[in-house]
């Protein structure tokens, strides 16, 4: 029912990375990925540096490798897409393991996979070390417009409301002898889906009104001190600094 209690993506650990203010982490991720994306075509060594850098962050944040690998499943659609490239791209062909593939397609696929994957892992690390509530706080500190912060606040809350109400409805159905295995009963589920939207909305509306009753003005009061010190910014800057230096070096040595 309530906002931002532990999210399933969040790993509750005490670590250096967990303690960093959220705004520092968000800025670091965005800058890091930007540096990665601007890596020139033709250099491959920078990706090794990026992987090492992310590996260091994962270690410092105590995020285990299996967790990261499991969550990388989100990439599947674009991995599939990358696999098509070497077959479908025009240009000179090469032979790899007996398959005739497009050389540029192969290179493109490699770059796409490398850059995309690094972006995905950076996000996974952010999510594993930052609670949704803190993400909001961080975006607020980074001056994301108030209206967007507000919509996002409610969105996080409603995701929970929707899950909570779905669960209540399921228990209510089953307690009254509902048998989800019958096909005819799909209709019931579809029917209650319409009610779900309104029910969630009205629950959320009442909660919102209760918040207003207690003086809510659209900004959540900040209990934890989310101010960031220069030291913390410096620490968070390590990751993007490494990446930017690498990219610059790659362009220089091209």
């Amino acid at each position, binding site marked *: 029912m309530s906002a931002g209690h532990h999210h399933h993506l969040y790993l509750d650990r005490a670590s250096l990375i967990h303690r960093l203010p959220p705004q520092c982490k968000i800025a670091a991720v965005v800058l890091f990925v930007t540096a990665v994306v601007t890596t020139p075509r033709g250099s491959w060594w920078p990706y090794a540096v990026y992987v090492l850098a992310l590996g260091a962050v994962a270690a410092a944040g105590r995020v285990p490798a299996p967790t990261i690998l499991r969550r990388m499943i989100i990439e599947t659609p674009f991995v599939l897409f990358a696999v098509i490239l070497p077959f479908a791209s025009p240009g000179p062909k090469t032979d790899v393991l007996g398959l005739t593939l497009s050389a*540029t397609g192969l290179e493109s696929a490699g*770059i796409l996979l490398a850059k995309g994957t*690094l972006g995905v892992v950076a*996000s996974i690390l952010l999510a594993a070390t930052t609670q949704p509530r803190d993400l909001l706080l961080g975006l607020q500190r980074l001056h994301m417009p108030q209206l967007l912060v507000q919509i996002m606040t409610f*969105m996080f809350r*409603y995701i929970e409301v929707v899950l909570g109400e779905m669960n209540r409805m399921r228990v209510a159905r089953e307690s009254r002898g509902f048998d989800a295995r019958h096909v005819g009963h799909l209709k019931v589920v579809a029917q209650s889906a319409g009610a779900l939207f309104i029910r969630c909305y009205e629950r959320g509306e009442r909660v919102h009104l209760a918040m207003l009753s207690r003086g809510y003005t659209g900004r959540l009061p900040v209990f934890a001190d989310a101010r960031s010190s220069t030291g913390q910014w410096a620490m968070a800057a390590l990751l993007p600094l490494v990446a930017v230096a690498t990219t610059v070096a790659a362009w220089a040595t091209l």
Partner: protein
Amino acid sequence: MHVPDGFIDAPLSVVGGVIATVGVGVCLRGARRELDEKTAPLAGLVAAFVFALQMLNFPVALGTSGHLLGGTLAAVLVGPYTGALCVTVVLTVQALFFADGGTTALGINITTMAIVTTVVGYGIVVLLRALLPARPASVVPAAFVGALISVPASALAFVGFYALGGTTGLSLGGVLVAMVGVHVLVGIGEAVITALTVGSVVTVRPDLVYATRSYEQPLEIRHTEQAA
């Protein structure tokens, strides 16, 4: 259709970012008229629903899959400006937090999936409502058609970006046919879900549907002789 990091080259990603920033800026100004104390949570709920819809990936053909976009639904429920902001928020959270769609491609994703869908979808709804009978229920078929068309329109916008800044060297014609073809099918699913949701909300809480707001009813006053 979430564009990952590195799929579109850096200069065009910047162009996408600029378009998105301007678009979101316009929406922020416009949304002030749509949002009040009560509709702010509705916007959040719509965002949560769009979020859930976009999780529904369904296979379309030969290993490709598409997901719902939710732009028209959002625009019909909370207005076009706020609707675009809702989808923007969803895309931002997905990029930063769920690793779905690249952080650097966020501008492009917002342009194609938040701005184009709401502009096209809501535009069609407004157009059709002018043609259909002036009843709240008319919004349902209008939303159906709006959703149906908004999805391939968004795919088309994506192909546009690809034509100008694609990094993968695939032939433009092939990409065009594949993207638009897939998204015509996705559009049908989107249309059905949009119409169902809007339909159920219109019957119970017509006041929650932006596109049908503004109906007043006279209040009755009773006088009583008080006892005690």
